[in-house]
């Protein structure tokens, strides 16, 4: 799993997510199969359960929004315990929870098994526009430095007893944000000059394209194809 070429993993993840989104939401069995497929991949890639659980927390706000749907959506009402909830709202909430969770899971498996340079190489091999991949590569290269700037300025503010609790006390935080932009932009200018002085001629050196054999594609896409079959079956064979 970890050794597959990145473009195979990107395409496989995208196909899997599209298959999940296209699955009929009333076909609960299909989502169980999707989850099982994802679990097989996560197990094969030896990703720790705790890593997946921690990174899936990002989804919590949307789960909260989904929980509201049965109360606010229109259509027929069904009795659930003491409550009368909207039927389409219940299905909608279920669809968001199931599809959203599987989507998050797939992205977590992708990012846990693929390094950032590999992802960028995969995107470039897939003919993603060069300007987007090169902006992304500069961003991921410098984001820790810029985030470090944020931390240092925060520590500097706090050690000078800044503890804003109301929005009219935000002056120092605003100053931090302004300084952060100036520092980042000036760093960009310095990086460009450093590139020029090292012979940059206006085109970024291309990363060596990563080669994928038919066998790589077959391995990588097996799970996605299974998910696509499940999605199709949810509309036809086993409704």
């Amino acid at each position, binding site marked *: 799993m970890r050794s597959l070429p990145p473009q195979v993993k990107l395409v496989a993840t995208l196909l899997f997510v599209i298959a999940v989104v296209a699955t009929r939401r009333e076909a609960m069995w299909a989502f169980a199969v999707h989850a099982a497929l994802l679990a097989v991949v996560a197990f094969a890639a030896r990703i720790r359960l705790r890593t997946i659980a921690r990174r899936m927390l990002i989804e919590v706000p949307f789960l909260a929004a989904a929980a509201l749907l049965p109360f606010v959506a229109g259509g027929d009402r069904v009795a659930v315990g003491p409550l009368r909830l909207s039927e389409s709202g219940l299905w909608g909430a279920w669809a968001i929870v199931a599809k959203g969770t599987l989507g998050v899971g797939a992205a977590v498996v992708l990012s846990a098994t693929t390094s950032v340079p590999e992802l960028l190489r995969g995107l470039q091999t897939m003919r993603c526009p060069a300007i987007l991949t090169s902006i992304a590569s500069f*961003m991921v290269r410098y984001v820790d430095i810029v985030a470090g700037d944020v931390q240092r300025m925060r520590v500097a503010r706090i050690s000078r007893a800044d503890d804003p609790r109301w929005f009219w006390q935000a002056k120092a935080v605003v100053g931090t944000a302004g300084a952060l932009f100036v520092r980042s932009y000036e760093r960009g200018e310095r990086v460009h000059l450093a590139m020029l002085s090292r012979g940059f001629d206006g085109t970024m050196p291309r990363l060596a394209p990563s080669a994928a054999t038919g066998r790589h594609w077959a391995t990588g896409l097996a799970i996605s194809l299974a998910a696509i079959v499940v999605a199709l079956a949810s509309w036809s064979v086993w409704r």
Partner: protein
Amino acid sequence: MHVPDGFFDGATSAGGAVVSAGALAVAARRATDELGERLAPLAGLVAAFIFALQMLNFPVVGGASGHLLGGALAAVLVGPWTAMLCVAVVVGVQAVLFADGGLSAYGINVLLIAIVPAAVGWVIFRIVRRLLPSTDPAVVTASGIAAFVSVPVAAAVFSVMYAIGGAVNLSFGAVLAAMIGTHVFIGIGEALITGAVVGAVMATRPDLVYGARDVEPTSRGLVNA
């Protein structure tokens, strides 16, 4: 908040991807015209700035805090085209590395977070600039108003798309009212922070602010005219 997988139906997600791809293609051409070979390093660092900016928590009331969305801010600071590219890259990195926003909803997220706020923010910014004198305070005011308008407009675009291809049938009026109702308040916060941050940058490096390049330096009173 970024839209996760399964929130919109397939056709709407695909439509969002096509519109976003077209807008980004135009943005890439225009931004390259403006910055040339400097585009990649500068836009990369601005993308890192936007990403890190969202780590900064601005106080709201009684210790509660919120962070900036930044579409209109980026448009005023580096121009709408570069801003669209930067925010689109940030949204992509968040989707792939942090699972924030669904991969199948990437086109929709780029449209709602990168393209609409930057475009609307920039148009409003230019209109307000034209109504006010060409001075630094006017730039700050115009960026605040632009940021305020951009947030509920993005919320309205979300509501329209939800009416077209939302996974749950909610009444369009209810979604629109709820989205705009909450986002007007978010917009007020966005406006205050955006204006203040633009002001902070103008205080040190006014020459870096794209939206203020046409302000005569003599109007700042620093140069002997």
